[in-house]
């Protein structure tokens, strides 16, 4: 079996995590790395005892090493340039979330994807690979709860409690704050569970800097609505924690990162709860190297196998674009003091 040749751009903490995983996927070979701090990146790679060339430009890296795919761990505003460099050469591209620094960029990126024989492309919403999320998706698809009437979704992280400097606080590079950088995981889940709403009413709150630290939104769908709350300034959440509860005509569902509980109203007299844990629905993979952070191995492996098998990745750029539309709608509504913003306006 030919190995999938992979290049990686951006050797920050997430880049290093992806490198550690990619290096251990049996049919993948990391052939090149790129970082704008080339000297420091070279020292880091040599310090790890790895013999992988480090480039200062993605175009040169592609030209010299001809990878099958590229994993981009760069700030969102740089993703468009990565897409332009890769898609013109038929190279598959995985980009860390969110898909782009703006909806305009995300639209331009999806426009680059050829309609036929497109190379695999993926976005790093690793939550899509949590077994409990997949189970919840399956139940919702089967209308297990009847017709959806309402959902409540929240995502919290204890990260920002003072004014910071850096790209995450520069909206021109990050594309936003808590909503774009961490809340986008929740928005991906919302759009994959319920589809896109037709209208969003949202407020964003800045506590410390130029980007929002907290956001609240109501999402209006055709026959139901959802409430959303996102914060990266929430004390107590050392790890990212999310919760989605869904009320339907026939049942209730509650999902978080550790369990999925489902209640069918018809079973209310016999303790109608059914609870799923990750260990009930996860199977070990023989060559799986568990990085200790859920979802990362599965998403990198999915990207490699998508290239190898010439199939779409689990989280495509179309999913990334829908999520980007939600991010944009939340920002647009918050700019008009929480009045309704119709997603139709986004095209």
């Amino acid at each position, binding site marked *: 079996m030919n190995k999938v040749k992979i290049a990686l751009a951006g050797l*920050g*903490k997430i880049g*290093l*995590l992806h490198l*550690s*995983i990619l*290096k*251990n996927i049996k049919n993948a070979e990391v052939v090149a790395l790129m970082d704008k701090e080339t000297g*420091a990146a070279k*020292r*880091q790679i*040599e*310090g*790890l*005892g*790895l013999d992988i060339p480090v480039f200062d430009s993605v175009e040169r890296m592609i030209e010299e090493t001809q990878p099958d795919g590229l994993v981009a761990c760069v700030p969102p505003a740089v993703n468009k340039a990565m897409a332009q460099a890769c898609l013109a050469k038929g190279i598959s591209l995985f980009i860390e979330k969110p898909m782009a620094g703006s909806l305009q960029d995300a639209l331009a990126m999806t426009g680059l994807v050829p309609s036929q024989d497109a190379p695999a492309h993926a976005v790093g919403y690793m939550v899509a690979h*949590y077994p*409990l999320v997949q189970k919840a998706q399956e139940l919702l698809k089967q209308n297990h709860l009847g017709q959806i009437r309402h959902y409540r979704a929240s995502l*919290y992280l204890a*990260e920002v409690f003072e004014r*910071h*400097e*850096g790209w*995450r606080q520069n909206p021109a590079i990050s594309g936003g704050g808590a909503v774009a950088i961490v809340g986008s995981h929740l928005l991906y889940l919302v759009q994959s569970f319920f589809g896109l709403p037709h209208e969003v009413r949202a407020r964003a709150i800045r506590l410390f800097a130029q980007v929002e630290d907290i956001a609240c939104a109501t999402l209006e769908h055709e026959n139901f609505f959802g409430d959303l709350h996102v914060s990266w300034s929430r004390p*107590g*959440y*050392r*790890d*990212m*924690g999310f*919760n989605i509860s869904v009320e339907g005509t026939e049942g209730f569902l509650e999902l*978080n*990162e*550790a*369990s999925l509980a489902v209640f069918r109203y018809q079973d209310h007299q016999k303790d109608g709860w059914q*609870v799923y*844990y*990750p*260990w*009930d629905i*996860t199977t*070990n*993979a*023989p*060559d*799986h*190297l*568990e*990085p*200790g*952070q*859920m979802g990362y191995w599965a998403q990198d492996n999915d990207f490699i196998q998508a290239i190898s098998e010439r199939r779409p990745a689990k989280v495509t750029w179309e999913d990334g674009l829908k999520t980007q539309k939600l991010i944009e709608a939340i920002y647009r509504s918050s700019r008009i003091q929480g009045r309704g913003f119709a997603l139709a306006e986004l095209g």
Partner: protein
Amino acid sequence: MELILADPALSSQPFLPQEKILPTRLYLTREELWAGILDQAAALNITGIMTLPGSKLFSLLLKHPNRWPLTPWLVIPDVYQLARDASRYGTTGAAARKILRLSLWNQLRLGALMLKHPGQAMKLKFELMMNILAASDGFGLGQWPGAEPGVILHHQITDLALAFDQKNFFTLFISAISGMLKARPALATRNFTRLTGLLAKSGDGRAQILTPVNAKGFLMQPDRKTAEAAVRSWKNNGGVLAEFWHLPGSDNIEADAAYIQNLGIAGAIIQIEDLRNTRKKPAIKRLGDSPSPQPSPLKGEGISGAASSS
């Protein structure tokens, strides 16, 4: 068997949702409430406390080292703080800030560690630099006046080093913790079989290994049977500390306890939620009373019968 109570601040996905950990952490913000938990722990033959450097719990133990027969096990480094700093300052900036926060004396001790390995320091070798980062969080142990404490390398760092086949990293960590910090070294991992395979190559069987061991086989890579064989082998080396042996949703703690006893586990992590559950207390006490193979850490660097799978 050695039982170690886990600070809920260390609880991590996917075992408990963050929103459920928070009430326990809020409940335990006052020292007297922690003291009550530690009284219960001691009564159940728990002998260790797994916590973070700089935590309220560790401060309490330092303040009253003779009140409870409990030994601290510090998990280092604080990866969440490190990740937050790395988001803000970059990986190199985060490392520099961590070292600058240390006292001058501890900075000198780190300098001495670098001078012992000048070649690696000059090349910024991962094995040395990551150890320096990790050890810088362990200096708080210097104030511990009691019995030999433990230092556990966080599983995300162990598994990162493992992914890059950094076998010298582990040898250096074990030597630095036992030599510089005078503590028992332990490695936490979610890839036990592969880690013991790598340690076998370096011939170093001294470390205790903290890893998920449960009848469901969850996080027992590559499969439960292979991982069980590796666990049985490691009991002749540093020994295995089992975490997540009693998973949420399991209502039979006795069966879960019997499972790890049969594997010859040296120690087990106890979660606060289980300690506070009256129905589960007798099983925890019986587990603490049960004999376990005595690990022989730090007696020598030989290795015995480690799984060769890697």
